[in-house]
């Protein structure tokens, strides 16, 4: 019984946390969402490398600064991350270009 209560509490906590997160996202919409509301044929293609870098990388880990690696190293890393993190070719190129231009 105690275990069931604990588990239910855990699930309830998770749902509450998710609600809070989504609520904060709605209250504070990210720039990607604001841009995506515009009537554009391919909003993904319109996102800048910086936006894509910030949103995609942070979903899994802290963002590493552009000067953490050389341009050649970023090429390899972005290839690796394209495979691992389900990036499209356009996203890979945009992020790599942004990182290299900031390097």
């Amino acid at each position, binding site marked *: 019984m105690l*275990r069931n209560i*604990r*588990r239910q509490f*855990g*699930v309830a*906590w*998770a749902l509450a*946390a*998710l609600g809070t*997160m*989504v609520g*904060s*996202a709605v*209250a*504070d919409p*990210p720039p*990607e*969402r604001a841009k*995506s*509301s515009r009537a554009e044929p*391919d*909003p*993904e*293609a319109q*996102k800048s490398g910086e*936006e*894509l870098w*910030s*949103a*995609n990388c*942070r*979903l*899994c*880990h*802290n*963002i*590493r*600064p552009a000067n*953490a*690696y050389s341009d*050649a*190293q970023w*090429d*390899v*890393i972005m*290839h*690796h991350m*394209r*495979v*691992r*993190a*389900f*990036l*499209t*070719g*356009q*996203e890979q190129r945009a992020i790599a270009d942004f990182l290299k231009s900031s390097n």
Partner: protein
Amino acid sequence: MRGIRSCYLIIASLLLTLSQPATYGETQTDGYVSRKEYDELKQQMLALKKEVETLKKEKGQSTSPPAVASTAPAADFDKQPAAPIEEQKSSGLGTTKFLITGDGETTFEAQNHNTSTFTAAFNPVFLWEINPRLLFEAEVSFELSKDGTDVGLEYAQLSYLLNDYITLGAGEFLTPSNVWMERFHPSWINKLPDHPLAVHDGILPEKSVGAQIRGAFPIGPTKLNLALYVSNGPKLITDDPGAAGMLRFENSVDNNDNKAVGGRIGFMPFSEFEVGYGFEVAKPGDQGTPFANVHSVLQSVDVNFTHDSDLLRGVIDLHAQYAWTRVGHAVYDPDGSLGFGPLSFSNKRDGGYAQIAYRPTKVDFELARKFEFVFRWDHLNQAPQAPGALDEERWTVGVDYWLGPSTALKAAYEWDQPHGQPNTNALLLQAVTGF
């Protein structure tokens, strides 16, 4: 025209230069040049003029007719370095397309009813971009154990970018159906010193040997990502009295001709939020045994959300994953010869975790921006009939101090209550760096 002007300027400068000593000399005398000095200067000027004419002719010969030729080599010059670079890329020579990354960690664990201990691990990742479409990636793990150092191959995969959306891969890879392993398990990404139950060393596969196809597909402002793989799959444990009915996922050399099929579909309604569903089906029993037709079905759902919020003055991060697994009905040790049978059951297990983290990156106090606060609940529920299986539930609070984007000091306290056993609460400390 500019060349002629330059020549005249050079001549004028030379004349002025040459005339200065004479003038200086005349200044020293009476201010005039003698006829002899005048003739000498005139000769010098004529000689210079002749020399300039000769130079102009030589220059004209080298530039005018081959004017086209001079641009042609320039154009070739631009192209020439490109060819070797492309060759270098395609052959994989050189060092610019090879990178060693990875992470290292040291952990201290003090757990109730166990001796406290330090451990260390080093996990280099080798990335080799053979050409812009082909990547080889491999990770080797070195971990301290009671017997010394354990060395393992975490993954070794060759992947090929078919087009902008689809990638093919083959080798040993982190299992896509278990998102924790594929994305969040490296110690510099994991925000707590240990790993959640069920999804790590638990009821889902961590790495698989086989082939996969995966891709990402933008759909308007949203994105769909898919991975589908075929692999050796797990092996059913049948003769271990403490683990009969469980699956062993380290099945590097397959135990039967059946191949597991699995995958994951993820949907991102916006770029900081993703929900996913993963699955794997297989026949894990040894070929030619009564267990050959036993089926296993593994399923998992996950939610991932990260947001840099002005409202909350920091980054909020939420990850949750829950898995259900089922191994079909089987009778283990049917004649009792192994000493624990006959044991008849269908092994159903479930478990997962939910984790929330907050880092106040937008507060004024600089020191506070380096701290991250983490809270996790994780749980594993075993089949009651399974031998040696204990349900377990943990609550963990932790705080990380980030020295850099991938270097942190972590501290956590974990309330751990295996069912029917004394608690194994633990203090965990860890220093970790990703490089």
